[in-house]
């Protein structure tokens, strides 16, 4: 299927940064697929929604500029979904 417009505006670098971010801070046993192998779009969107909800961002599952801005902020290394 054609990639959605938002998808197209996201750079590969931002996409990979977001995947690494979700893998580090939002992977617990229930989303093992995030931590095990390249993220499927479905998994990515679900986990991104979780992160957007945590930070009070608009929950779209899409990598918009506000979400990327939060992802790039310096932060604590403890996961947001602590086991």
């Amino acid at each position: 299927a054609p990639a959605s417009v938002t998808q197209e505006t996201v750079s590969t670098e931002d996409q990979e940064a977001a995947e690494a971010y979700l893998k580090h801070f939002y992977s617990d046993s229930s989303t093992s697929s995030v931590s095990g192998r390249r993220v499927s779009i479905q998994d990515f969107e679900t986990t991104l929604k979780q992160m957007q909800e945590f930070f009070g961002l608009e929950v779209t599952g899409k990598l918009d500029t506000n979400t990327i801005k939060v992802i790039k902020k310096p932060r604590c290394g403890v996961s947001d979904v602590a086991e």
Partner: protein
Amino acid sequence: FGHFPGKPKWEKKTITYRITEYTPDLSQRDVDAVITQAFKLYSDVIPLDFKQVYSGTADIMILFKARYHGDFHPFDGPSGVLAHAMSPGPDVGGDTHFDDDEQWTLSAAGVNLLLVAAHEFGHALGLDHSRDPSALMYPTYQYVNTNGYRLPLDDKRGVQALYGVRESPYPQPQPEPNPQPKPEPGPNPPEPCKRDLVFDAATSIRGELYFFKNEYYWKKTSSSIQQIRIKSTWPAINSVDAAYEFKSKGVSYFFKGQQYWGVKGPVSLPGYPKPISQFGFPSSVTKIDAAVYVKSTGRTLFFVGSNYWSFNERTGKMDRGFPKPIHHDFPGIGSRVDAAFENYGYLYFSDGARQTEYEYKKGRVRRVLLNYGWLNC
């Protein structure tokens, strides 16, 4: 606020911590002071005390290191992850690691150590990340002014939900601001007006001069001399070997044996006593005779026996080439120094009852006095 699953918490009242590796960005003394202040944010509101230890395994082991540092979560270079901590528990429980690729500071520049340390110690006490952007436990770093910083309400509620409330806001009994300690008759108040009076120590504190002898000090104000028991002002201190005031911080330090205390006026600072080895003294130094801070050079001079040391307050390190013989650089002031202080730009060195007024910049003795002359006899 949130807690970790299972609500892990410390079951004892005193938690020990040890800093095994320091960051080169700040002096060790500054790191110690900030870490103490970060723990005090919590001990002010919950019935838990924190004690720094300098050897062996503490409950909370703290280090500053870049990249791989011994656990399964290597740091990622500048920015990104700044630090992390383990939840309460045995062994690695509570351990806290700071990424030394960051520029650690005490200000808004770089990464403020107090704010990040306080956040990580929240994890080490059992707090999870908070969704409240104004909370200390919010996951992303945000600088706020740390002058008079207190635990934000969300974090205070979170930690008190785990440990209960510490009744008095201050863990240590602290005297009311500006109390006038009442002179207490002690077992043997020293006689001030004796020509052969020898001081244990002397220092300026906030514009007034303090002369220490046995368990007492004489406080010299513009109008009077008060004789006061040391313990009645600084409860943890019985007598003093040496003392100096680091004016630019408004902190005075008292030395007794191989320990020292920090005070701000009548208030004893938390986290003391500390070992004098932190200044860089070898273990062979078991007592400091006298100390004086020389503002023009930013150095504190420590006198031990017939030698003296020079400590760079800015770098927090001893200057190279010390100790040196006192007579080598201070001819005329005597073979040893019992007490030393600065007053209106002149240094005063006491050797027994004799005191010399010394002009540091010119390196020469101006006058020879007697100690008791300061006590309005």
